[in-house]
Structures are given as C-alpha cells and as structure tokens.
C-alpha cells in the first residue's frame, strides 16, 4: 500500500534523508529504529505532508496514488494517520468537537454520511473504555493541560476513531510509564488487522515487546542500513547501534 522509492529530503539545503526505500503491504507492521538525528521523524513528517521539507528526488506511492502531490488533509482523509511525538495543544477547542469534526471530514471525503451525535458517542465511549480514559477528556480543550501520557493516549483514541488504512506512530513510547505503555500498545494491537498497515518509529526496543513488528529497519544518517525480522530489534537492544556497519558511533 505504501511504496517509498529512493526518497531524498532536505531542510534548508541540508540533506536529511539520503535515499530511503520502504515497502509496506496491508496488514504489515514495520518498525523503524535508529539513533537520534537519523531522520526518523523527518520521514513521518514528509509522508504526512508537513511544510518546510524539500523532496529532492524519489517517489512515494500510496494506494496507487502519488502521495507527495496531495495536501496534508487529503492524505489524512485517504486514511493516513500520524500519532504525533509531541501532540500540540489547541486551547479552547473542545476535544470531542475536534474529534467529531475530524471523523466527519474523513467520512464525507469517502462518500459516507456524517455520524450523528449519538452514534459518534457510542463509538467513542467504547474506545475510551479500551484506553481507560474518563469522560473529562472530552470536555477539555484539545491536549490542553494534558500530561505527556494523556496526550499519547489521546492520539491513540483519535487513531481508533479515525480507523486509518495506514498508521504512523512517531515515538509513541517516549514519556510513557510502563502502565501507560501497556494501555497504548493494547489500543494499537486491537487495531491490527489484515488490511491495516503500521509504521512504528521508535528509539528503543521496549515498545516492540508490546507491539511486535513483522519487519525492523535501522535508519542511520538518512539511510536504511539494515532490515530484518523482529529479532533484529532484540539484537539492537543487546549490542546497541554501534555494531551495524554505516553507523559511526551509537
């Protein structure tokens, strides 16, 4: 469903991604690991259309379409979801209202009817129970005054409600304690199915104990330097990044 071919990306003339290729098929979970500054977040930003990045060469095809030609909201409505590393606060905008607007923007785009308030609430309550979130979440502003763990859970809630075809998770584990990590991972795992693809970006192997990937890729200095199965993650945990060729220092 997602084919990234020899993708090169610069910010202000500095090359960050130096030729990335990645092929994600429906139902697969790909983990992208790598040291800080290797370009992991840049990849998630470019795939979701954040401004400020220059794609200098390569291509990205998503469900047969040229992804790089689409506006960020169009990509989202076509089923790409990014769970942010640092979810932003939008003061005064009710969390539930925001979520409903997002869900309906996507439904309208896909030719479905908008959800009415009752159906929306039913579905929302069910998913909130799964993530052990209480009702007060809905009345607060979007991420306004949320703790780090609450923000991440809110991201997973949005993901569950938006039912993406391709979900990107950017360092979802950072800033989470073990309990919160478990809850978020359960949320993600409940969404795994044959159709849905995942790209899980993480610095640490820990997350992959909970969300077990099909493939692991090691990103270093803007290139994928090694790919393998889930065992690669364990090997990394044991030996660090230093043993892989192409990484100067871990």
């Amino acid at each position, binding site marked *: 469903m997602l084919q990234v071919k020899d993708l090169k990306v610069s910010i202000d003339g500095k090359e960050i991604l130096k030729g990335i290729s990645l092929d994600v098929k429906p139902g697969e979970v790909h983990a992208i690991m790598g040291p800080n500054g290797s370009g992991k977040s840049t990849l998630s930003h470019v795939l979701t259309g954040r401004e400020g990045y220059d794609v200098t060469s390569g291509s990205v095809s998503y469900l047969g379409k040229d992804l790089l030609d689409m506006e*960020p909201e169009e990509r989202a409505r076509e089923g790409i979801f990014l769970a942010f590393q640092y979810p*932003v606060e939008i003061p005064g*905008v009710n969390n539930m209202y925001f979520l409903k*607007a997002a869900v309906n923007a996507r439904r309208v785009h896909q030719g479905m009817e908008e959800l009415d308030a009752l159906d929306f609430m039913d579905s929302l309550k069910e998913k909130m129970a799964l993530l052990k979130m209480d009702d007060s979440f809905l009345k607060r502003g979007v991420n306004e005054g949320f703790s780090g763990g609450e923000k991440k859970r809110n991201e997973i809630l*949005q993901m569950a409600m938006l039912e993406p075809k391709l979900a990107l998770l950017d360092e979802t584990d950072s800033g989470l304690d073990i309990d919160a990590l478990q809850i978020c991972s359960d949320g993600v795992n409940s969404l795994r199915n044959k159709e849905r693809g995942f790209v899980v970006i993480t610095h640490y192997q820990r997350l992959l104990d909970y969300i077990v990937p099909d493939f692991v890729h090691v990103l270093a200095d803007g290139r994928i330097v090694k790919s393998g199965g889930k065992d690669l993650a364990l090997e990394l945990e044991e030996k660090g990044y230093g043993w892989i060729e192409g990484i100067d220092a871990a």
Partner: protein
Amino acid sequence: MVSSTDHLDSLVTQEYKHGFVTDIESEIIPPGLSEDVIRLISAKKDEPQWMLEWRLNSYRHWLTMKEPNWAKLEIEPIDYQSISYYAAPKNPDDAPKSLDEVDPKLLETYEKLGIPLEERAALAGVAVDAVFDSVSVATTFKDKLYDVGVIFCSFSDALKEHPELVKEYLGTVVPTGDNFFAALNAAVFSDGSFVYIPKGVRCPMELSTYFRINASNTGQFERTLIIADEDAYVSYLEGCTAPMRDENQLHAAVVELIVQKGASIKYSTVQNWYPGDENGVGGIYNFVTKRAECRGDNSKVSWTQVETGSAITWKYPSCVLKGDNSSGEFYSVALTNLKQQADTGTKMIHIGKNTSSNIVSKGISAGRGQNAYRGLVKITKGAEGARNYTQCDSLLMGDKCGAHTFPYIEVLNPTAQVEHEATTSKISEDQMYYCRQRGLSAEDAVSMIVNGFCKEVLKELPMEFAVEAQKLLGLSLEGSVG
C-alpha cells in the same frame, strides 16, 4: 502544495454576505448639516420643543469641537456637509400600526438577514426592534412585554408615549458634549431603541435591535437608552449590517445604560457592518459611544461585543461604578482583516466601595488589519477595596497585520487590587499541521483555532447568537489563512 503564506495572500476571496441593497422608495433629505436640517429632522419626528432645544444646543457645542485624534487610526477626512442626515423608507400612511402593515420589502430584507420579524417565527424568545436607515420600521412582542411592565419601543415612540422617562434619563450618562461624535449624535440622531424595565422585573425575553444601513450617502445616528430600575434584569442584543458600497458611511451611535440598585443589564453586540474591500475602499466608520452607569449598590453591567465588520471601529463601552459593590464586565472579540482598523476597549471607573471589574479582550488581526486594545482602569480616591482583572490576548495571522495594546491604569486608593495580563500569539504551524493531519481543511482549522481563542468571550453571548457569532468569525476570515 500550497504553503501557508500563499493562503495568506489569497485574502481577496473573502465575501461579505450582507452586501445586498434593498430597492425601496426612500425619503432622503439633501446632504448637509445646519440648524435648519436639525429643525427639519425634529419636525419630521413631531418632537416636543425641549427635544429640539436639546438638539440645537448639542449642535452648537459640536461646532466648537474637534475630531479626536488620539486613537491609532488612519481616517480619511470626513466631509460632514456631504452626508445626508435623514433617510427613511417612504410610507403612504405614516408609520405602520402593526407588523401586518410593514412594507413586505422590508420584511423580506430582514428575513434575508436571518432576522424574522414575525412573532411566531423561529426566534420566538427574542423581541426585535428593526431600525432601517434613520427609522425604526417594526418592533415585535411590544404588547406582550408591556403586560409585564417592560417598555420596549423605538426611541421616537418613547418620546411620544413616555416623554417623562426620556427627559429624566436622556444624556445623563453620556452628556451632549462628551465627545465630538456623541455631540454630533445628540444633534442629529433619528431613532434607536428605548427600554425600561420596572422595579423587580426580570425581562421575560431577550430584547434585540437590528440596525441596517441601506441608503447611500447617509449616516446612521441612533440612540439607545436602557433603564433597569431596582432589582430588574434585562439581556439586550444588537446586530448591524450594511450593503457594499464604495464610499465610506458614518455610523455614530450613542448608547446609555442606567442600572439602579440591585439591577443588572447584559448588553451584547454582534457588529458586522460592511468592512470595505481588500484595498480599504468603502466600509462603515463605526464611531460609537457606549457607557453604563451603575448608580445603585449591588448593580451590575456586562458588555459583550463581537466586532467583525466596519472599515474603522472606534468604541469603548464603559462602566461607571458608582454604587457600592457594583460590578462591570467587558468581554470583547475584535477581528480585523482586509484593511480594517479597530481601536476598541473599555473604561472602568471605580467610584463606589468594593466595586469590581473584569476585562477580557481578544483581538484577532489578519490581512492588513490593525487592531488596538485601549483601556482605562481608574480607581478613584473613595473606591475602598476595588478590584480589577484585565486580560488582553492578541492573535496574529500573517506578517502584514498589527496588534497593539494601550492599557491605562490610574489608582488613587491604596487598597485597590489591579491585575493586567497580556499575551500575543500566532496560529502556529504546528497547530495547523496537526489539524490538517486529522483531515480538517486549512480554513476549518483556522476557524476552529480562532473560535477556541475567543471561547471565553463567546460563552458570554446569549445562546442563539453565540452560534451566529462563531459562523461570522469563520466567515470573516474566509480565505485569509492556511
């Protein structure tokens, strides 16, 4: 891909929804201002002699005054002799006696603006006074209100039916010589709304006045007088629109509120006069003097305004807190887009003991708009235990607009507690990216973020109008940011 700056540059796509002109036969007096013109207006309205004298005195005072120039505004010189000071829809038999007799074209106009003038219509809980150019064309629910002792009528009717009340209160809060525009208004005002809530009465419905400027080359000078007697309560709302025209039109209104012991007035404004185009051609000059006097102990006044229209807005709804324990509130959203300018804020004058005031101002600047908050908090010598809290937040969109804050604080009593907080922020790229990643269009994202920014003010509006105001904010920013 389209960047946010490109969206910013596409400002021009904004459209003003209320820009149509009603084709109705009107009686418009020739442009120009003189004692004869004032006599003519007064005669047309069949006014008592004292009213004419009051007008003429104001006019003579006005002649000695100069336009204020302290506001941060660029104003093209106004030629007061080129304005017509009276325009009214022609009606064969004087004023309509009932709603059924109102010209259907007028009813249609208000229908189009979303203000039904039928008493069984959607806004059943709201009584409306409709002011078209210089005259009030209809007032709904008049009789029903009169049954509970509430007087709600046009200013002209009040002068005929309750002259003693008008005479007692008119000009006691905003004196005729208060300022240049107030003096001009006192000389030539043509109509407006009058409200009297008797002792102990809680007005059973929202009262509202809807102002519409239709004729060209005219000014609108209305006067609103609201009196809440002891322990009375009223919530009042005004709305304003005008057709799109290339010339600037002057709207110089005066609003006086009198709040007696234990009484409370809530006054809300949704102002959407034609703002002019992206080059600053046309639009309404909205120069308004609004003041409330809390005369009795434990009285309260609350101003809420959402100002999205007008080429220039110059207004400072104020509270004179005379009674002990009286309180004043000012909640404001002012939005300037295109080449709009706003210099607005409030004055809180603390005179009584333990008086309190609360100011929340939200300024939004987009396009080439200039937005200034100007506020005075004055604690006089005898105002023992006075408190004030002021919060001024500015939101900037793009790099061609401006936000300015001019707070003045004068404290003459050492027991006062005065707090002032101010912030300036931009809609961050992170916020836009986040919203768009969730599938919201850039425009919906802006509208949502702006409404969130204004939430503290919007929640003060009566429910029926809060929804309108939210839409209006989104609409006024259409095409401005991405």
